[in-house]
């Protein structure tokens, strides 16, 4: 668990221009390990753009990105993945026909002992065991490890997708999870399950950035809230020190920016 005071991910003075449109204007943003930062804003406020910059899908026009205090440059999502940043997508995250264990181990399979290992045979039992251990570690109970992903409910799918990303960013140095509307299309119970999981992941030292339109969700799970408004940062406050009214004010622009000169 990294408890150092260096942010897991920090963006400073990031600009993003699409032609003449300023999608992001001098954005400073950071997230510490163990923190859940909710990124709020109306449509077109720049949330998705900021997320794309963090995940390496877009390169900012100006500004710097540092990961654990080291300056980095992302040319592609693969670069950010190597730096320990994982994006959790709303859909397309799981292979339907494969079981949970296979989905969790894809890309980091456990091979059997030689000679079968030389032929690329995987040790399915060990994979199931490790997957179970990883889900247990996150306090997640979904279904049997041998259950195909297509036979999971929406909530279970999302939980497995989250866990999959979480296991990829945790290690000796915990990474960053980028979550885009993780509870969209989920029912009440399932939303609660996913919320609990996000809180647990953060408690284990993973830094979480949560992009959402859902104010109650943000209030429930985040430790800090950042509000964007037309490409600018309007607010950056601990969740405990704000309320829905204030946030709505910043989101709509009715309330002046905290950083207004």
């Amino acid at each position, binding site marked *: 668990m990294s408890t150092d005071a260096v942010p897991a991910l920090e963006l400073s003075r990031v600009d993003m221009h699409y032609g003449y449109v300023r999608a992001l204007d001098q954005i400073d943003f950071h997230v510490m390990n163990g923190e859940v930062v909710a990124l709020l804003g109306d449509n077109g406020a720049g949330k998705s753009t900021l997320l794309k910059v963090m995940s390496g899908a877009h390169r900012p026009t100006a500004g710097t990105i540092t990961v654990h205090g080291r300056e980095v440059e992302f040319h592609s999502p693969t670069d950010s993945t190597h730096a320990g940043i994982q994006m959790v997508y709303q859909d397309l995250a799981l292979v339907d026909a494969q079981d949970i264990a296979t989905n969790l181990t894809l890309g980091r399979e456990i091979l059997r002992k030689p000679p079968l290992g030389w032929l690329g045979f995987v040790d399915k039992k060990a994979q199931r065991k490790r997957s179970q251990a990883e889900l247990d570690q996150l306090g997640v109970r979904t*279904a049997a490890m041998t259950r195909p992903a297509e036979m999971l409910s929406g909530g279970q799918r999302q939980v497995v997708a989250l866990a999959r990303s979480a296991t990829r960013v945790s290690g000796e140095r915990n990474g960053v999870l980028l979550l885009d509307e993780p509870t969209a299309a989920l029912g009440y119970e399932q939303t609660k399950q996913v919320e609990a999981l996000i809180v647990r992941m953060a408690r284990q030292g993973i830094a979480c950035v949560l992009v959402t339109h859902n104010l109650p969700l943000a209030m429930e799970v985040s430790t800090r809230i950042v509000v964007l408004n037309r490409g600018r940062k309007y607010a950056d406050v601990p969740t405990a020190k704000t309320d829905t009214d204030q946030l709505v004010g910043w989101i709509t622009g009715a309330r002046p920016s905290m950083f207004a000169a």
Partner: protein
Amino acid sequence: MIVPANPQGAVSLAPDDTAGAAPDEHTKDSFGIRALIFTRDRGLIVLWVVLILVFSIWASPFFAKWSNAVLIANAAALTATFAAGVGVGVMSGSLDISIPGTAALSGVVCGWLLTHHNPVAVALVVALVIGPVVGVINGLVTLRGFNPIIVTIGTLSVTTGLAAVVAGGYTIPGLTQLTFMGTRHYAGIPAPVWIVAVLFIVLTLFLTQTRDGIRLMSVGGNTEAVRRSGINSSRYRVIGFVISGFCAALGGLISTAVITSASPTADPGIIFTALTAVALAGVALSGGRGSLPRVLVGALILATISNALTIKGIQPYWGTVVTGLLLLASLGLEKGIEASVERRLMSAAQASVHSGKK
């Protein structure tokens, strides 16, 4: 990498996770769900067994005999080889239409090499390599963003044309050097059946037990998910084509060996028969799912039906009709089972959400 243990977190998490959960329920599905999944996955075998029982009575006493079983297996072998190619292609996300062309080209090249006094081993290896080569070309072109069906229609044309060029437009006869893999029997079983048995065992193990095979299936199911796992998904799409090309070349060699001559004409019927077996096996054309043993059973069902009708002296055209009806009926059955599996799982999933929350 496993998350480093966090005793404090684990303790604080324990109450809401493990409350009231039997440790076994944690890792195993209930019997009902497993039974339904079994029916869904193995229904075709049940159908085949039923067919065999019905035919044993209807076409007795000639049907239910060991010698007839060997006949059926032998008749199914060629279809099964091509069906393996089509099946692996479809599972990896691309329907390979070029199979008949590749088969013709490989047979003809083998025939040409043999008639020009080359050793049998050389002829076989060269002819077999043609399959993967065509596969790599199919794969690399498809990766440029073209539809695999169109691309392989193109290579079908090219390979068919090349086969005719190599053979000078005529069938190459008298290839008796290949009878060891054609009409010869080993331990009472014809050579093509042995070849198909080995092919299916190897490919099934590959697809279900090895890292590359599982990734190949996953790419067919959801390329994005695999790519996002940091895996080079393109490679696996090419591997899919390489395997289907190999099966095509192998099938071309088997048919050349059986009829001891190499015909430069590609028979597009191969694709449709193979596709019927693949569809009977419930391999989704959208890719990512399906099992090769079931494809084998699909090919065996086709051979079983035509065999029984032949014994009863019924015109073989009826075999085609019955096969078609069977395919349509199996679709209906599959849908019914799928729906009931879903219902069962839906209630199970809801139960587990609630028990998870306590």
